[in-house]
């Protein structure tokens, strides 16, 4: 299909990304098929003719979203929200775990330092320190 017609489909495709991908791909395939039928009957048709018969990308998307904001559309938004919440929760847990790990590492290093001091004779409070180290 001609480049300007491809742009027409791309424009619609881009704005339909809010609805489940499978649904909007199915729709674009059907629209492509019907436009191809139209072009077969009207080989000299230009983009303006296509927009007159099938609607401008904005009109097509508008009509589609108004009517197909049914349960499927709402479900998909809910799914996206759930995924977003899960991602944030996982990120928070990862941050907390990382913080615990860092604090633990610092504490471990601190203990190592103390033992080193003990080894150097600066601290005699733990006579076993040198031996255990």
């Amino acid at each position, binding site marked *: 299909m001609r480049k300007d017609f491809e742009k027409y489909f791309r424009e619609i495709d881009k704005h339909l990304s809010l609805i489940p991908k499978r649904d909007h791909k199915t729709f674009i*395939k*059907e629209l*492509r*098929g*019907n436009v*191809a039928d139209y072009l077969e009957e009207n080989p000299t048709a230009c983009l303006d003719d296509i927009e007159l*018969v099938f609607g401008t990308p904005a009109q097509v998307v508008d009509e589609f979203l108004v*009517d*197909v904001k049914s349960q499927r559309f709402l479900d998909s938004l809910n799914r996206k929200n759930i995924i977003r919440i899960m991602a944030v929760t996982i990120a928070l847990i990862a941050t907390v775990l990382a913080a615990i790990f860092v604090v633990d590492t610092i504490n471990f290093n601190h203990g190592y330092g103390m033992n080193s001091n003990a080894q150097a004779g600066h601290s005699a409070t733990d006579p076993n320190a040198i031996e255990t180290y």
Partner: protein
Amino acid sequence: MSSTIYDKNIIEMLVLFLLCKEDLYAYNIMKLIQSMSHDILSVQGGSLYPILYKLTEKGYITDRVEVIGKRQRMTRVYYHITESGKNHLQELIDNNNRIQLGIRNVFENASVEEIQ
């Protein structure tokens, strides 16, 4: 020049009526509405697809996909009316007749002075 129909109930009614005769795809339906109304009415593709999907979701019609072209990027989706679709069509026709009658009554009861 034809008038584009935006009333979804009217489009629904015409679609279901046309599907009673044979299975059709969207572009077919658009052409038939225009030709059978003697170019008085037309439906834009953008208005028609959501209605077809809604009717499918509600079980008033079913669809059958045929791939056209080699790259499978284009399909022709044929729609078929179900029994519940036929019942729904009857409801839409009755409702539309009532509306038409109501509109006629309003016009008949209004005097020329009132309109002006």
